[in-house]
Each structure stands twice: as structure tokens, then as C-alpha cells.
């Protein structure tokens, strides 16, 4: 490959405006986490400072884990990396093709059929007709949807939705993979299949950014950890060091840390 994937985040801040009298879910979810992060912008609107002066770079080959309590800014940071939220200050530079697995439904329309949702995603990624046909086959087979492919997704079981979302998200191989921890949902049988496919994808990606609550997952997948706290980076370094700080005690040796 001629050029390497790279992420450069330079002093970015992201603020969410809170509009009076609005009952938006954003407000509800942010307030719980906002403790001490409410402020005002120049126009005296109340804002939540979701990210504040965050800087780091990630080079090709790195596996970055984001850890922190609820509302620490992990998901917001992933959305910034995906180009969904544009920062109010600072600069974001992403080099390389990118795939963001941020929520299980991935913007899928529940009224449409599985096949139609796959078509839309294929078109979004600029695939040609034969490529989309191959994507359909791949996803249908992996998600074992069979006859459900031509039925509206709203009648799918939640497991089926997750499987479809997962299969679709992992069908397109990016250089940079952004992942929230939702992919861990799903039945046990599916988890094994998912794991193999995910491992293949992660290995194929040059950069992985993974947000999770579970230190076991982070330890297993990541080489470097960012500890997010109240919208700031609290610590940044090799996984074991930062995790030990985060947990407040040294990590057990690998032998004891085998997943249950």
C-alpha cells in the first residue's frame, strides 16, 4: 500500500448546545454525565463540553482502546473520528478509508427490508451492481437471515437486527476501523462466528479504535489505551499501564485473566 492510514487529532473541542425547553434525548443523556461540564459559549447558550482540548495521533498498526466511565466522551470521540460531529475548535485529519461501527442499527431503516438496507449501504460505499449482489450474498449468509431478507426489518428479532448490522458493517474492509462495544451483543452461537469474522477484519485494518467498558476486551484487542475522563484525556499509554491506573490496582497476570 502506497500510503499509511493515520489519525491526527489536534486540540479538538466538541460542545453540545442545549436548547431551552427541548426534550431531546441528547439533553437527557448528556445531563446525567455532564457534572461540571456545563458552560456557556460566546452567545451565552448553555453547552455541554463533551470534549475539551483533546490531542493525539494514531499511526498505522496501532490498536487504540478508549476507556472511561459513562459520559466520559468515548462515543463522542468516535463520532468525531468518523466525521459525524465537526469540532468547534481544533483540527481532525483522517487518512485512509474508514468504517465506523457505532450503533447496532447503523442508520438502517427498520421499515425497509434487509435486502434494501444492504443496497443502500452498498450505494453509500460506492459499490457497483455486481459488488452489491456479492455483498447481499455475503451478509445474508453470515447473518443467516434466509427468508427474512425480503421482509421489513421491524419484524426481525433483536438478535437478527444485530446480526445483520454486524455482518453489514464487517463486510466492507476499511483501513481504519472505529468500533463501539455494541458488537459484543448477540447470542453465544453467533459470538463465535462473529469473533472469527471480527478478528479477520481487525487484522486487516491498519488502525483500530475501540471503545469499551470491559478491560478484558481492551486488554485483548488493544496495544494502547486512552483513558477518557470528563471530556479530557486522563492518561495515554501502553494498555497494561493505563489499565492499571484506571482500575487503581495492578493487572492480574495473563494466566489469571483468562476470559470467563
Amino acid at each position: 500500500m502506497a500510503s499509511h492510514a493515520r489519525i491526527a487529532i489536534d486540540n479538538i473541542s466538541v460542545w453540545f448546545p442545549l436548547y431551552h425547553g427541548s426534550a431531546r434525548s441528547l439533553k437527557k443523556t448528556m445531563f446525567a454525565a455532564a457534572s461540571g461540564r456545563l458552560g456557556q459559549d460566546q452567545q451565552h447558550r448553555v453547552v455541554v463540553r463533551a470534549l475539551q482540548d483533546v490531542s493525539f495521533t494514531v499511526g498505522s498498526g496501532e490498536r487504540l482502546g478508549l476507556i472511561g466511565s459513562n459520559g466520559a466522551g468515548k462515543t463522542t470521540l468516535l463520532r468525531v473520528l468518523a466525521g459525524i460531529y465537526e469540532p468547534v475548535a481544533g483540527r481532525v485529519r483522517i487518512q485512509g478509508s474508514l468504517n465506523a461501527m457505532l450503533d447496532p442499527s447503523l442508520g438502517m431503516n427498520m421499515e425497509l427490508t434487509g435486502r434494501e438496507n444492504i443496497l443502500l449501504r452498498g450505494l453509500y460505499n460506492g459499490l457497483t451492481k455486481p459488488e452489491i449482489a456479492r455483498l447481499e450474498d455475503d451478509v445474508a449468509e453470515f447473518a443467516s437471515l434466509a427468508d427474512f431478507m425480503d421482509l421489513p426489518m421491524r419484524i426481525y428479532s433483536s438478535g437478527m437486527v444485530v446480526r445483520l448490522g454486524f455482518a453489514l458493517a464487517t463486510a466492507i474492509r476499511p483501513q481504519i476501523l472505529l468500533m463501539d462495544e455494541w458488537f459484543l451483543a448477540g447470542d453465544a452461537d453467533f459470538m463465535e462466528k462473529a469473533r472469527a469474522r471480527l478478528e479477520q477484519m481487525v487484522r486487516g485494518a491498519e488502525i483500530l479504535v475501540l471503545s469499551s467498558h470491559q478491560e478484558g476486551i481492551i486488554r485483548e484487542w488493544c496495544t494502547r489505551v486512552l483513558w477518557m475522563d470528563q471530556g479530557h484525556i486522563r492518561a495515554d499509554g501502553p494498555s497494561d499501564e493505563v489499565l492499571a491506573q484506571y482500575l487503581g490496582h495492578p493487572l492480574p497476570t495473563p494466566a489469571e485473566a483468562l476470559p470467563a
Partner: protein
Amino acid sequence: MSTAATLHEIPPAPADVVLDLTADMSMRSRNRQAVEDVVAGLRLWRLALTLGWLDVRLRYRGSMLGPFWLTISTGVMVASLGFLYAKLFNMDLRSYLPFLALSQVLWGFLASLVSEACTTFTEAESVIRSVRMPFFVFSIRTLIRNLVTLAHNIVVIIVVFAIFWMWPGADAFLALPGLALWVVDALALTLLLGAFCARFRDIQPIVNSVMQIAFFISPVIWKPEQLGASAALLFINPFYSLLEIVRAPMLGEYVALRVWAAALVYSTVLCAISWAFFVRARGRVTFWM
């Protein structure tokens, strides 16, 4: 691995940078990003087309006649209103009904487009929050959805024209420049109202009321001639000028230069306001969801 890595380690952006966002509030860079949004949106035209088409299919999924229900309801409305108003206004059905069919169908397009422009971005909330997508894709989608509806309603016009055997002839092609202007205006409107209504959620009911009033004060069910001498002032109403540049050629009538000039001026103003607002709002729309 340091916390404060600097950008100096990165060589100047090579061609394959997919994303470079600087929180630069200068008008110039905002304008450039808005242009990039439109260009990227046009590149994803296949996606936008499919989205618009699926919207129509979805609305009528499970119904036997599908979108042709629209045609039927428009047809019934034109027929019943036609007989009523021809009586009320003391008009000859032969001249009134083709006029009404055409007006009603074209106005139906304008009214639903304006109303749906308001939800252009909010209806796509789940997509906007999960992937980076050019906003212009949703503008094209709203336009396509309404064009598909319009295409179904055109059947009503054709039937009415056939009943009275009144064909506009080759003059009808003069409606094409007008339709082209409609497309531009429609896209501008979706950007403006789409972003504005995402920020202020109570705008849509206001817009709908305005369209209701506009329907009555514009010559949709009544003919401009009925105003007598005051008809010369009609060009003050933007809806009249815009409606007339498409409707008149299809009735085999001549469009006054003044009407076309007014339509162009209104469109320019609309596009300018829309662009100015979109340039300012584009980066913020996601936060308003």
C-alpha cells in the same frame, strides 16, 4: 506514545486524505466545505435516487394500486372541485377543468415539496448520527420523492386533456426551463428549510399554514383574468410567477417576460438565502438532531 502529539509529524496532506476538518470559522472555509458537501452529494446520486424511490415504495407498501392511489385521489379532487367551481365562478367547464387539473397537480407538488423540505434532515436523523453523509444527498432524496409523486399525478392531467381533446402542442416544451428552475429552487429550499427546521422544530406547522394561505391567494383554483385590472400586480406573489412559468406553456399560453423576470429574481433570492444559511449551519446540523 505521548499525549500531546503534534501535527508536524504528518507530511502535507497527500491525495488520499479522506477527511480534514478544521474548526475554522472563516466564511471562506465554511463555503468550501458546503461546496464539497454538494459535490459529494451529487456523486452519491445513485444513493439519493434509491432513497427517494424507496420512500415512495414504502409509503404504499402492501397496497394494491401503490402510488396510483395518489393519481386516483387527485383525479377525484379535480373532478369534484372542477364541477363545483365552474358553477360557482360561472365558468365554462371546457376551459376551466384542464386549467384546474394542471394547477392542482402542480400546486400539489409545490405544497408537498415545501412541507417535506422541513423534514429533509430530521427524518434522516439515525443516518446522520451514524455515518458521515453529505447533507445534499437528503435534499436530492426529498426532490426525487416529490418528482415521483408528480409523475404519477400527471396521468390526471393527461386524462383531462384527452377528455376535452385540448392538447397544448409543441409549446408545452417551453415549460421545461420553468421545471428546471423548479428543481434548483426545490434543492435550495430543502437545504434552507431542512436545516432551519432541524434547529427550530416548530417551524413546520408555520410553513404549512403559510402554504395554506398561499394556496388561496395564488391563482390555483381561480384564473388570473378573474382579478381584472389587478392581475398585473400578481407578479408580486412569488408563487404566482413560479407557477405560471410552468403552467402557462402547458395551456398553450404565452408567459409574459415580466413574470419570468420575477420568477428569476425570486429564485435568486431564495438560492442566496439558502446558501448563506446552509454554509453557516452545515457543520451544526448534526448537533441539532
